[in-house]
Each structure stands twice: as structure tokens, then as C-alpha cells.
């Protein structure tokens, strides 16, 4: 599971009043093994693993094709996600895949793995670790003048691959609704200042827009075309470069939280969204983003 879920466990212990401070750590050293080979072990062992034709990348390609066919999304729109995120990543010193001046053609000409998933429309295999410290309200004020408050949390697991509607991230939608309700958010696109999401594939980011209520169902591609999620536009998504720029699997979601915290603290340097106060961070686990968790974070300033 992603470190973003471990944050949830830390929150539970602090809210229970039994603990005051929690350290949450997540890491993966992808260079020591092939994560896509290992991820096959997360498939159902009774059928899918026995048949042996599917892995996480192939499943994502099926999802991408289904989504693109249903809503008439073009490969260029997918590539545009990579261009946006990787351009942002070029300014992020913590990112893994930094390609300054990346172009649409470069993405569309990158190696094809499973149509339409290409080298640059899927996340790289990264090494990385990440940690956050959580504290109760009382302890937080003792320790820092600049705490970031967790205003909302929501989590939900979807059905398994075969039993779910692959063209929609229903689990993420349920998770986001819970987080928005807890944080009192009615119009996420208007109210949020920045979002950091775990998009392992370019098409996932478009589906995430829809599930998070940034646009209507099937309009993810159109939102991308409008450039509203670029770094200096209405609601910047993944100013850090997102999972497409670095994916140390179980740390990826926790990194989203850290990047969101840096944004609302005004510490994101060249990737800073000016005046960011309210941020969303998203973590996921499982093939085709089966289990999701959403945080709403608010800065003190």
C-alpha cells in the first residue's frame, strides 16, 4: 500500500488520543527489481495469473483504450498530460525524469509498450523515500509556527479489475466526496488552489480530473486542452511533475502529500503556485488505481 495510506493510520492513532506525534515513512528502490514483474503477484491467482496475458501495464492500456473510445479522447491529449507534468518536473530538484523543453512529438514518438501506453505516458521506475511528521493540534503548535492542517480525508477501494467499470474511477470519486464533505468543499475546482495526484499513466490524470469533480464525466481531455491545470493557470495539477516524473511506488502518494504541504507553505520554489492555501493530495494502490485515498490540506498563512 502507498505511504499515503500509512498517513491515515497515523491520523487514527493521533485522533484516538493515544499518541501525539507520528513519523510516516515510505520507500521503494525500483532499480533493484522489476516492479511490473512483481505487480503480477497482485493479480487474482486463480485465473488472471494462470492465464498470464495481463500485467499492470497491459491492464492500464486496456483501461486507456476503453476510456479513449468511450469519450473520444485523442492520443495527443494523453501526450499533453506528459508534456505538462514533465515540464513541471524539469524545475523540481526531487523529480527523477526531468526533460527540459519536452515536446508533444517526443512523447508521441517514445517507445510503445502496450498501445496506447508509451514510455513517456507511463511512470518511470524510480528509487526514492519520503517521510512526514504528524502531530496533534496541541503538539503541532508547540513544535512549529507553520503547521499544515489536514482538513479532510477520504478513502475507498473499488471492485477488482474484472468486476468494475474501468472507464471511471468510482473508488476515487467516493473517496473525494468523503474528503470534500469533511473539509466543507462544495466546488472543488473553484475552491482548491492546487492538486497533487498519483497518475501512473497519462490517461489516469484525465480520469482523475473527472473523479475529483474538476470537470464533468468524459470531459477530462477537454479540461486538459483548456490548459486550466497548467502551473500558472486556474487549478494547477501536479506542479511537482506527479508520478509521471518519479514513481518510487509506495512512496509516490506520500510524495504528493509532501509536495502539497510545500505548496501551501509557500516552499515549492520554482514550482510554487502563487498564494496556494488549500491543496488536494491523492494516493493510490492496486492495478488501474483500484484503491484510492484523498487528503485536503490547508496552510496556516
Amino acid at each position, binding site marked *: *500500500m502507498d505511504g499515503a*495510506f500509512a498517513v*491515515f*493510520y497515523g*491520523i*487514527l*492513532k493521533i*485522533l*484516538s*488520543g*493515544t499518541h501525539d506525534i507520528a513519523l510516516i515513512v515510505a520507500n521503494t528502490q525500483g532499480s533493484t527489481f522489476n516492479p511490473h514483474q*512483481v505487480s503480477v*503477484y*497482485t*493479480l*487474482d*491467482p*486463480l485465473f*488472471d495469473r494462470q492465464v498470464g496475458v495481463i500485467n499492470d501495464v497491459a491492464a492500464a492500456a486496456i483501461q486507456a483504450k476503453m476510456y479513449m473510445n468511450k469519450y473520444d479522447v485523442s492520443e495527443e491529449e494523453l501526450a499533453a498530460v506528459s508534456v505538462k507534468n514533465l515540464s513541471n518536473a524539469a524545475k523540481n530538484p526531487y523529480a527523477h525524469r526531468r526533460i527540459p523543453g519536452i515536446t508533444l512529438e517526443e512523447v508521441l514518438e517514445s517507445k510503445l509498450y502496450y498501445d496506447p501506453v508509451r514510455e513517456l505516458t507511463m511512470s518511470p521506475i524510480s528509487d526514492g523515500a519520503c517521510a512526514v511528521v504528524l502531530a496533534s493540534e496541541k503538539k503541532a503548535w508547540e513544535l512549529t509556527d507553520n503547521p499544515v492542517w489536514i482538513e479532510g*480525508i*477520504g*478513502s*475507498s*477501494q*473499488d*471492485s*477488482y*479489475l474484472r*468486476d*468494475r467499470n474501468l472507464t471511471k474511477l*468510482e*473508488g476515487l470519486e*467516493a*473517496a473525494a466526496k*468523503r474528503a470534500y464533505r469533511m473539509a466543507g468543499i462544495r466546488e472543488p475546482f473553484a475552491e482548491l488552489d492546487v492538486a497533487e495526484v498519483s497518475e501512473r499513466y497519462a490517461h489516469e490524470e484525465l480520469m482523475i480530473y473527472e473523479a475529483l469533480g474538476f470537470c464533468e464525466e468524459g470531459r477530462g481531455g477537454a479540461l486538459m486542452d483548456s490548459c486550466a491545470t497548467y502551473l500558472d493557470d486556474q487549478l494547477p495539477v501536479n506542479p511537482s511533475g506527479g508520478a509521471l516524473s518519479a514513481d518510487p511506488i509506495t512512496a509516490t502518494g506520500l510524495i504528493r502529500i509532501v509536495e502539497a504541504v510545500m505548496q501551501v507553505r509557500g516552499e515549492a520554489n520554482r514550482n510554487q503556485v502563487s498564494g496556494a492555501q488549500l491543496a488536494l493530495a491523492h494516493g493510490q*494502490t*492496486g*492495478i488501474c488505481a*483500484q*484503491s484510492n*485515498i484523498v487528503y485536503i490540506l490547508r496552510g496556516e498563512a
Partner: protein
Amino acid sequence: MWRNVAVIGVGQTKHGRRRDVNVAEMISEAAWRAIEDAELAPEDIDAIAIGNMQGFGGVCQAELWSGDMFGAPGKPLLRIATGGTTGGSVAQCAIYQVASGLFDVVLAIGFEKHSDSKEPGATMGLAHVGLANLFHLLECGVDMRTSFAWGGGVGAAAGVSAYQAANYMHRSGCGVEHLDMVAAKSRSNAAKNEYAHLQWPNCTPDDIANHPRYGKFAAYPLRFGHICPASDGASAIIVASEEFARSAERPAWVRGLAACADEENQMAENAQGVAVVDSSEQIQCKVAALKAYRMAGIKNPKKEIDVAEIYQPFPHQELIYSERLLLFDDGKAWIALEEGETQIDGRLPIDPSGGVLSTNAIGSSAMQRVAECALQIMGKAGEHQVPKDVKNAVAHGWGGSTNFTVVTVLGDTPRLRR
């Protein structure tokens, strides 16, 4: 802030060699029994916590592909993996989920299916741990022979435990015959527990010591008859807030809980005979116990604890941990054992269910300790119900290379009184 939490439902599968079910069916068997025991419907469950030993049985992240069989879709789910303590950690996670005020009814599940990867499959996981330690040794330049000795000779868990047992015997003065007594007690208690794996009605210490196979030493002082089986099985509990628990007939209230890790035990394992740390000391268990008792308001555990469920895949561990849970003085647990105090009808029954020595489906084992304590408080333990009023019960688990500990105290009244 803490709010009162209770266990209101328990479900277990028959543990043993379960070739009649697959992992998903096995998990849901326990989950549905727990939901039915709590007289709930699956839609009443707000959140789920689940865990097993990752990679055992050749499967990973089983909650993703089996979730549909126990009502997971649409619900928040957390997976926990902490080695042998997994089940206990999952139960504690569910307790925190409710105590935090975020959820009212939570389903916690622990499971393992060793037979899916054949018998050695279970220990293959442990061999990986051994191998990782070996590479660590290569880096750090520690004497290689010791690592090969325990890793190759008897398998990781039994290897660590044999040294631990010898150390405890040296420290306390108990003998192999006392290990026979614990094993015999466990097997005969298990015969009264319909869900247990190795059942041996009226087993005596001599039955084990003189048995042509079980009497042989696997690694002195542990006989084959002293070693836990590799079981298939799942167990589940329903944890609920006070509002929901009030409608239950006799809920088992969570009075205190704590987890503690002492990573120095990793060194004890590697250096075995010439250990940096004596792995029979288990100081972290005492720390966890003190925290949990303080939270539960228990001042004198020797008197106030009515029954204990201790995680004892090897018999000397029942003795060590009962001392570290402060139920007996240091080095004196075997005397209480000799006097029959820890029998089902004794003064302080330990593992009336038979414990891990008779049933070890790893992810399920520490969960079963909490579940069995709950059953004793609810008065629903059936044939192995202890013949006395159970006010407080303590559930224990150890994991890793004896470095993790979880302790959960359940009682017949809520922690916070109005």
C-alpha cells in the same frame, strides 16, 4: 480523543489444511461469520482492516482481488503487514479506526494459506528473511558461519527460538519437561476448540516426550512435538463504537492497547549463541504490557487478569511472555505451570484455545488471540470457556525476529466510565 470501543462479533474458519477453499473463499468464510455473529449486514460495515504475511502462499495484496467477496468495494480499506504480529496489528488498527471517531463499525481480518505454496512455501518466506540478513552480514562483515548455522540448519523461526529457549532455560532453571507440559496443554486445549488445527485430546507431556517422531529433537531443546504447524485459516472481528456495542448482549470492551518494537533483537538472531542481546529477554513486551495495563487501569495484572492468550509457536515462549506480561515473577512461570495454574480450570488459564502452538496461520494467529479473549469475555468460547467470570483478558502477539510485540487488553466494562 479516545472513545469507547468494543469487539461485538467474532468469526473464525476451521484452521488446518484447507484444500476445499481458495484464499478469497477462506477470508470471506471468517468475515461473514463475524458479520453474522455481530448480527449485522455487510452494508453496516464502515471500514475494513486486513492483513497477512505478504508473499506467503504465493499471493500478494489479496484484499484487492478478493475484496468483492466480503463487501469491500466502496469502503476504506487499510492493509497492515507486521510479520507475526500482523493479526494483532490489524485488530489494533480497527480499534483505532473506531476510537478516532472516524468510523463506527469496522471489520478486521487476518488470514494465511500456507498450503497453497506447499509446506516449505511458508518457510520460504522466512528463508528470504534469512537471505536478506545474510546479505546484510556480507555488508557488515559479521561471522558468516553463525548465519549459515541458523538459516540453513533449522529454518529461521525455529532457529531463533531454539537459542531463545536455551537461554530461558538457563536463566529460569526450567527443563525440557516443562516444554513438554506446555505443548501437551496446548494440544489438549486445542482438542476442545473446534477451529484449532492440531488437536490431541488428553495429551500428556509423556505422550510428546516418548513419541517416536514428535519426541525427537528438531533443534535442542525443541522437539518436533514442540513446534507449531503451518495452518490455513482466517479469523475476523467486528469492532464497534459504544453506540453500536450497547445493543450487543455482552460486548468485549477494549481497555488498553500498545505496540512496541525492539530492533536489537535482530542482532540477537544473527549472533545466536554469542548474542549482543539475549532474545529471551523480550524487554519490548514488558514495555508494551506496561503501557496497555496503564491505559486499562490495571495495577496488578497478576490478580486482575483472568485469562491470557499468548502467541507461542514454541512452548518456552508461553513461559517467557507470561512473565513479560507481568502475570508471573521473572523466571517463575514454569513453576506456575507445574502447579497447573495455567490450565483451563486453573487460577490463570493461558491459551485455553490451544494457542499458536496448535494452530498457526500466521496472519490469523495474533488476530485469534484477540478474538479468543473476546470470546472468553462474551462467554462464547464453548468447550474451552474458562470456568470463571472473566473480567479482564490480555491478548499478545510477537513477530519479526522476536522484535515486534502487540498487547491488547479486553474487559467486561468500557474503558471510560460515564
